[in-house]
């Protein structure tokens, strides 16, 4: 089953990437990133069957970081929305050099 799990992980990751590339709604892009993280988690879990429970420990770390990232990221999105009345990435370019 590991081969299937890893394949699924790769496909989900690619789907997340394509989502990041094609979507312009900041929140959806964010969710695509979450999907990519989930794909990686799947790989960790699958391989933990071979290499021991350490992979699962890392999944817990990933989840924590994802939670923190969601908190800060969504707060940023709220702040941007207050400022620009939009969450479309095309309209957000305050980082222009």
């Amino acid at each position, binding site marked *: 089953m590991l081969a299937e799990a890893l394949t699924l992980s790769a496909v989900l990751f690619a789907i997340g*990437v394509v989502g*990041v*590339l094609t979507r*312009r709604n900041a929140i959806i*892009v964010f969710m695509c990133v979450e999907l990519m993280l989930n794909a990686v988690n799947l790989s960790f879990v699958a391989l933990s069957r071979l290499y021991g429970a350490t992979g699962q420990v890392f999944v817990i770390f990933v989840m924590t970081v994802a939670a923190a990232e969601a908190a800060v990221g969504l707060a940023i999105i709220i702040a941007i929305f207050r400022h620009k009345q939009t969450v479309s*990435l*095309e309209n*957000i*370019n*305050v*980082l*222009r*050099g």
Partner: protein
Amino acid sequence: MLLSSMQTIATATTGHPLADTAAKFVWLLPALPLLGFVVNGLLSLTAAANIGPADPSAVGHGHDDHSQESTHGAHGAHDDHHVVRHRHAALVSLVGPGVLAASFVLAAAIFMAMRGVEMHVPFISTLFSWMPVGDLHIDAALQLDPLSMVMVLIITGVGTLIHIFSVGYMQDDPGYPRYFAYLNLFVFFMLLLVLGANYPLMFVGWEGVGLCSYLLIGFWFSEQANADAGKKAFIVNRIGDFGFLVAMFLLFSNLGALDFMGIAGSADKLQPGGPLVTTICLFFFLGCAGKSAQLPLYIWLPDAMAGPTPVSALIHAATMVTAGVYLIARSSLLFSMAPVASLTVALVGGVTALFAATIGLKQWDIKKVLAYSTVSQLGYMFVGVGVGAYAAGVFHLMTHAFFKALLFLGSGSVIYAMHAAYHATHSHDDAQDMRNMGGLKQYLPITWVLMWIATLAIAGIPVFSGFFSKDEILSSVFARAHGSPLADAVWLGIPGSALLYFVYALGLAAALLTAIYMTRMMLYTFHGPNRTGEMERNHLKEAPWTMTGPLVVLGVLSAIGGFLNLPEFFTTLIPALPGETLAKWLEPVVGSATARLAGGEGHLPASTEQLLVGVAITIAVAGIVIAVTRLKPAALVKKSESPESVGLEKMLEHKYYVDEAYEKAIVTPTIVVSRAVLWKGIDSGIIDGLMVNGSAMFARAFGWVGSQLQSGQVGTYAWVLVIGAVALLGAFVRAMQ
């Protein structure tokens, strides 16, 4: 530090007969003037810090009431009202000459010690290891031998007198402590130059005296001409220093040693008369030509008279400019192995002697006359050391130090009086132009008598010092012209014998001209009617004792200095007198070199010698007679009323237009090339434009490209990131297969 260096000396030099004498304090000789420099320099600085623009020279000449005065060249004397003496003047007057006097006393003590012992080996006192680099081991070591002893005595002795003279001459100058600081520093470097036991240490002194010369020529730097003269001296000397350096490099690469003892030990590696030793000697001579103002690098010395007159006396007549002669005497071993180089030295010296003497004929500035006279006399010295008569060259160096210092100080006394008179009457005439003088003998009787002594000495009138030294040089040239290695050598296709006869003729002609121009100077300055003006006449008076005192001492030395090295014909005349004292004294240092160049016949037949002496006396007397009979001081008019001279006179007055020719041939092209190529092309174009601004432009362009990438569009970043990740993974995939 002093204690440890003393210990080093004690350990390094045990065994030498001088080890337990005053000679162990040799390091004090230069250290004392250095101490004086530090003290006076600090006084100068504190004064500047405490009372504002006290020094200087930063505010014109420090004349509060005559700031419009700009026509005066060099003068140190100011009127005695309105000018407040420097606040530390008393202390400076004590320290400045004091350290010199102490140095002189020590030098005299060492001299007494040295007289008692056989100086076959120089006394070397190593202070510390200076440059231990690979094969190169250079110590900061001082070398005492008869030659350096003579130089030390001249420098400290004449130096002390000139320092004392300066106390009077510079008394009202706002830069008084600065002046003595420079002067002390000069003596320090000069002693380092003559005491250094190796060429690099000597070079330190060599450069140091150049620096002090520059500082003192431009002492009144607020006037453009003085600052320019300082720069000119400095730059021209750099050409000579290049020669000195190259010679040192050649010596080290071929002999592996730079200390005098080491070179003496390994000199047999050099092929006598070979191209290498000739090249080394010629490069050394280039250095000498720069420092000692020989053709074609003499041009800086006349301009150097922009400095205070005591400086001209000490640096530009008595000591520093003779460093070149000292260098050749010190390197006599090398020069005696290179007859061609020695002939070059003699020829350049002879031509310079005559050339400068002709210019001296038509100069009106009293100091310029003396300056060209110095160049001419230096030429004599080089003739002497060039033909291998090293003792004679050093002898003339010594007598010249006496009488030329006297002449300069005397002229300083005259200028002091003239300036004081002009100042009292608010006249703005040139205090140094002889056409403004005349008849000064009744106002300055002491100066008049003493300067006549010096004039007779330089002209070569018997029993005065210059007669013996000059005659010895000329008779040496004549003696070497036949049957010596020099005469057998071939110089650029010319037989050395012919060349030496030519140099002898040059020397005689220069001697004639010397007598003429010196008598002319004396006549115009002290005799005939007075041309200073009615009002000024009443203010002319002799300088204070601090100035006349040193003059008297120098006058005595000028008169009897010749007895330090009486020639053989003279001692046969009066057997009671000791003969050739100096030559015997210098024998351990230059004896072998002299013998090598003299060949078999060291001495002329007595009859020939008497004939030569007769010729020399005749020429000297003839010169004076010609000057006295032909020149009419009464016909002279003031400088402002003098007509333009014409023809040859004009050419002489303009010094053969050499400065103008250099200006056209070297300075202007250099400036043009520097401006067009170095500045506009390389500096502005390549370095500023391409390198500096170019790199900035490149960085800016690169940054612009980068900033365009920073669109702020997160989507774009994501695309770039993904494409990069895909490419990277692709590379991994390829690598794994």
